[in-house]
């Protein structure tokens, strides 16, 4: 135990902070932000831990934000049917950031022991009020994500109509 201290990088920053920063940098929503802005976002995000089979949110509930998976995996379930499984660095729930009263359209359940980084609407509003430039960068990317998802859904519906 004491020997391991000799080998470990004890000068590295708090592991939690480091994980959040790395995860934010990799995420498309925060892609355009400067290191200073990433640091600002990291200070307002929430790190949450879930045990296996624990619900993150349920279909029909009011949602307030998005989650980035920093460790583990998450099942997305619609009307008791599993739609997909999301892995590390994937994100979900971003629609709730911009909807007036974002109702969750599916249930998210931790598949194993999972750690999530939560970024919520009240915090986004605070960023828009205090540093609108940062807010615009995030909103632009959220718009892009929603647009891409809409295109994909439209293409899927069209292909199903053709068949």
């Amino acid at each position, binding site marked *: 135990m004491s020997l391991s201290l000799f080998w470990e990088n004890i000068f590295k920053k708090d592991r939690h902070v480091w994980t959040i920063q790395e995860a934010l940098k990799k995420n498309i929503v925060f892609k355009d932000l400067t290191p200073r802005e990433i640091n600002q976002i990291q200070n*307002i995000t*929430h790190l*949450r831990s879930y045990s296996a089979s624990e619900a993150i*949110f349920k*279909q*029909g509930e009011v949602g307030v934000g998005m989650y980035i998976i920093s460790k583990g995996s998450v099942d997305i379930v619609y009307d008791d049917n599993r739609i997909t499984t999301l892995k590390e660095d994937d994100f979900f729930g971003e629609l709730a950031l911009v909807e007036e009263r974002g109702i969750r359209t599916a249930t998210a359940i931790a598949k194993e022991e999972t750690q999530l980084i939560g970024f919520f609407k009240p915090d986004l509003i605070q960023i828009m009020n205090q540093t609108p430039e940062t807010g615009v960068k995030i909103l632009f990317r959220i718009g892009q994500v929603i647009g891409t998802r809409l295109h994909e859904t439209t293409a899927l519906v069209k292909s199903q109509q053709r068949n």
Partner: protein
Amino acid sequence: MEMLNRIRRIKLLFFLISLVFFLVLVFWVKNLLVSLFLALVGFFLLKPFVDFLVRQGLSRLVSTLFPFLFFSLVFFGASLVIFPALGNQVDSLKAELPKYVEGTQKMLQSWESGVFSFLPVESKQRLGIELSQKVQRFAQSVFTDLPEILSNSLTVLFLAPFLCFFMLLDGKEFYRRMISTVPNAYFELSMYLQHQIMEQMGGFIRARLLESVIVGVVIWIGLGVIQFPYALILAVFAALMNLIPYLGPLIGIVPGVLIALVNQETNAVTSYIVFIYLLAQLLDALIIVPMVVARIVNLHPVTVVLVVMVGSQTMGILGMIISIPFASAVKIIYASIYQHITDEKPLA
């Protein structure tokens, strides 16, 4: 897995212990509840300024300190002008109070004889005694309680800004730490409730105070023009009462009209006074309400009356004033939890 659950249980336990300790402290320590309420009012008033300065690139500490010092100076300057004038009027009213109490009693008695001609004999005596006793008791209590109110005010005057400053400076971080202890199942609901309550309360408090200031200033100027006695006290009273929806404006007008009637002012003067009070309410209804009413939590008039009655029974005038924002917060919490539980399917 077991370790994770253990940490969560400990966190939850700490959260609940802190919450209970905080609530006991607030209700047990004298003046703390009032100071906390006023600090919260200050927080909502100053927050837009602090946010503005942070947006300009200043640090949180400087952004908090600057509006705080500025408004403290403005308040101090205003108190140098307003407090002595208010003190003089209070002294003078104290001296003349027996005259007004007697005058009011006489008026009540003369109204009684008119009204009671329709009522049975027993209720005549009972009501007559009750009315005059109540007027006398109320008038006496205002001045006997005044020293205690003032000594409490001094404590509040130091404690409230102190709390307000740290709410503005560290409130966000404190809130983050508190919410991190909330169990996963209630986490999003707590975030949603906190956001809704803060939005509604901020709008509510700013709007109500703005309304009160406008009503107070209009009445002060209006009564000052004809050099009506106690214009400032009447304006402050009407402004404070205006914080109570529906009932407040009605209560606010009573002392002004009573003074006019007891002083046997001419009909023109009495009508002018009623007109000033109505004008203040009209400006409020035409300018302020359309601008901010959409953001304010709407409570049904019956709910307002019941809530104000409960507030006055438990905490007096202060209870009447803070009962409305309190009831609004309860309404938001109730509605949000209800929707959270019952909305099984997404809304169409």
